[in-house]
């Protein structure tokens, strides 16, 4: 299993895993694409094939967890049908409760049971009692957070009368299990996807080119930017920074403000490249087959406020929480105090969705605080009649400040290194790094205001890739469409040649196969 660089727990990559950045996928996808083309005339056979391929794709991780997908699929299929037939409020509520209970129950059990058991035991011990709740060390089923949210949104939308139940079980099962988005999103809404299945959409030639373009662009974000920055910059820094301040033998050289700044920015670039790259490959894969998945990232680092950033980052999740948590809580309709409470609650839950750990909850809380701060500033400006500054320098400063806050908060998202991530000599001595030592080390390094050198092990190409990643973000903000259009205007042969060269770049940089970070959520 490959380490995810301090983001331990959850599934890692085995040689047999079919990651988007694996050769197995490079063979799987063309086979699926060609068969999909052949079967297009027979919609039922096409969907059955895509469903089978999706389950095969998922079973590569662990076939035993297919049972969970089937449970979620079957329960919500019947809940949807029941909601479609019944007019009685009590029955409808019971049906919705069944969907919520099964989906959130599965998610809660597999993802959060150990966290709550450990936290409860620690709490009991802190007050002098003995905590005996069992810790089960369960393996987290890949994608459970994503497909349970998809099926939940289906049942809730039918309950609210905004969606008609799916007519075909096959369509519904494919909506839940469609392989491009099954394990890490984007979280697709039934209202967007089921009509595409009913229409039996097929890709036009330009959509195939567009899809391949998105796949390669996503792979470059993941393999060339995120993995290089993650393995060659972030890992040497984050795995050692706690030791640098807690173990006198380690040495502080390189763990100063320069290293900390690079690592803090580096982790944001890594996680963005990793997840946006994954989403782009998923969207491109679906596009090649004629399906459209929702955009998941829209240049988040160019946002001018934290609130805007969260409308550009993991859009399918942010909008899910907006529609199914924030608005039902009252949204911004019940006064400023309630609005702030709702923002904070939504972000805390979003933090917990990302992982069962206190660092994720703190991370969510700080994001919520950022949004509340933005809101407060906006209302204050409106009250005093001060116009927002919109000049180029002001915009650049706003973007820099927003990104700076996001990056510092994101560094909390990264957990302390596990024992096996530490240098061998410390492993042998049984040294571990506590969260206090890890985060304390990080912020002490940042606030030393000296030592601008790089820590040992950080490699220059990673620093170059970090800046390349940021530059790409700026270029794609202003020129993304132009570049894509220029590519799509080329003859297909030239497109193929460029894609091959891009694949060469991906192959060249893929020295190790690093799993996608969001698989563990």
């Amino acid at each position, binding site marked *: 299993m490959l380490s995810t660089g301090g983001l331990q727990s959850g599934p890692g990559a085995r040689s047999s895993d079919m990651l988007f950045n694996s050769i197995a996928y490079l063979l799987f996808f063309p086979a699926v694409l060609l068969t999909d083309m052949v079967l297009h005339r027979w919609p039922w056979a096409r969907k059955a094939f895509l469903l089978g391929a999706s389950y095969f794709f998922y079973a590569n991780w662990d076939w035993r967890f297919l049972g969970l997908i089937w449970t979620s699929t079957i329960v919500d299929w019947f809940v949807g049908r029941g909601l479609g037939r019944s007019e009685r409020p009590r029955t409808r509520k019971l049906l919705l409760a069944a969907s919520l209970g099964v989906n959130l129950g599965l998610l809660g059990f597999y993802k959060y049971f150990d966290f709550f058991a450990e936290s409860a035991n620690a709490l009991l011990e802190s007050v002098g009692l003995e905590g005996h709740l069992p810790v089960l060390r369960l393996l987290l089923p890949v994608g459970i957070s994503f497909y349970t949210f998809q099926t939940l949104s289906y049942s809730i939308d039918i309950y609210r009368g905004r969606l008609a139940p799916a007519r075909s079980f096959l369509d519904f099962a494919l909506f839940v299990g469609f392989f491009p988005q099954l394990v890490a999103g984007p979280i697709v809404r039934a209202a967007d996807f089921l009509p595409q299945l009913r229409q039996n959409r*097929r890709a036009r030639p330009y959509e195939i080119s567009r899809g391949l373009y998105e796949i390669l662009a996503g792979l470059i974000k993941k393999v060339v930017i995120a993995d290089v920055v993650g393995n060659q910059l972030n890992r040497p820094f984050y795995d050692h920074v706690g030791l640098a301040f807690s173990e006198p033998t380690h040495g502080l050289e390189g763990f100063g403000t320069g290293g900390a700044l690079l690592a803090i920015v580096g982790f944001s670039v890594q996680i963005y490249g990793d997840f946006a790259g994954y989403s782009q490959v998923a969207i491109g894969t679906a596009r090649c087959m004629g399906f459209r998945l929702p955009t998941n990232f829209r240049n988040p680092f160019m946002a001018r406020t934290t609130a805007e950033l969260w409308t550009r980052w993991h859009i399918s999740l942010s909008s899910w929480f907006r529609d199914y948590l924030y608005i039902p809580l009252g949204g911004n309709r019940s006064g400023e105090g309630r609005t702030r409470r709702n923002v904070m609650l939504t972000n805390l839950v979003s933090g917990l969705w990302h992982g069962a750990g206190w660092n994720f909850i703190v991370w969510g809380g700080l994001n919520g605080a950022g949004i509340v701060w933005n809101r407060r500033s906006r209302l204050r400006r409106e009250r005093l009649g001060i116009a927002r500054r919109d000049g180029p320098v002001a915009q650049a400063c706003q973007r820099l400040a927003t990104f700076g806050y996001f990056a510092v908060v994101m560094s909390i998202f990264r957990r302390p290194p596990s024992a096996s991530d530490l240098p061998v000599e410390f492993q042998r001595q049984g040294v571990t790094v506590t969260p206090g030592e890890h985060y304390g080390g990080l912020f002490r390094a940042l606030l030393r205001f000296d030592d601008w050198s790089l820590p040992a092990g950080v490699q220059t190409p990673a620093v170059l890739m970090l800046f390349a990643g940021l530059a790409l973000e700026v270029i794609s903000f202003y020129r993304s469409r132009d570049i894509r259009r220029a590519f799509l205007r080329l003859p297909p042969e030239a497109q*193929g*040649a460029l894609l091959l*060269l891009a694949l060469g770049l991906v192959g060249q940089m893929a020295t190790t196969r690093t799993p996608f970070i969001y698989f563990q959520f």
Partner: protein
Amino acid sequence: MGRRLPHLLRIAAGGAAALLLANLLADVAGLRWLGTGDREHLMAVQQFADGDRDVDAVFYGTSVSRNAAVPLVIEERLRDLLGREARVWNLGLPGSTPEVARFYARELFRRDRPRLFVLEASPFLWNAHRVDSQGGLTYWRWFADPLDVARRLPELDTARLSAAIRGLNHGAEALWNLPFYLARRPQLDAARLENPRGGNYDYEVLWHEDLPAPDERDLRRGRRRVRPLVLEEAWRRVLLAVGEECRRKGIRLVVLHYPKHPRLVREFAPGDHRRLVRWISENTRAAGGVFVDLDGDPAWALQDADFRDFVHYSPTGARRFSRRLAEEILAPMLRDD
């Protein structure tokens, strides 16, 4: 399928043309090996294959033989002893596997070229456990051609298949690597001089650790971790195939057990080395080769100063060993030949 399949085929045709062109360009411009830390050795393999001069001996193995056999020293001694020019190649590759030996024997060797093929007998080359290392993919990453990949497709696992597919696109990879290589060339050259053994193993850890020899009780209790030794049928077949190729081409196969540091023996479970030596000697005989066990000969025991660590020889040790190897083993064999 309408217009979609022709469109896809046109994209594929463009990709295939770019692949061929990039590979051709990389090969003509000598960029093929840019992406590897073992560039010099892979280039040596290429030079050996392209050359037409007589060759007396080719050494192959992992970093053990790469570090132990110094071609210049051996050539010098052989010249003195045989009274003619001698030519020796060390084509050892760190972390590599016996598959590369079969590739050499099958694809690179010709009738009587070389006269001797000196193959390493060490747990590092013959241990099936090592297949998962990057070096274990050397053959598939760098040498396998499309036909070989297609022919042996059913026996390839994901890692080897990945390496083979990456290898097919080596031209595009090399072109991308060029700017990085040029930018880092001074550091790479300096690092290579400073650390000629390469970075294929974490020897520093072993060097600083004073491990006692494991005994059976410790192992049973799981107190000591030892290097695993797995000898498997596939490697036996490779050794037999190498022997068969050598016999067909008139090449003498010598399987050489290099003198080891006593500490290395202790890193394996008791009896593992004896098991390995027995396995190699039996199979070498079956392959029609000669097994030379210098490790079992007290007269060949080396001093601590002859080792860089517990596995590799120091430059002084390697030169001393190479001289003696030329005098006592290679020269008599070449005279017989």
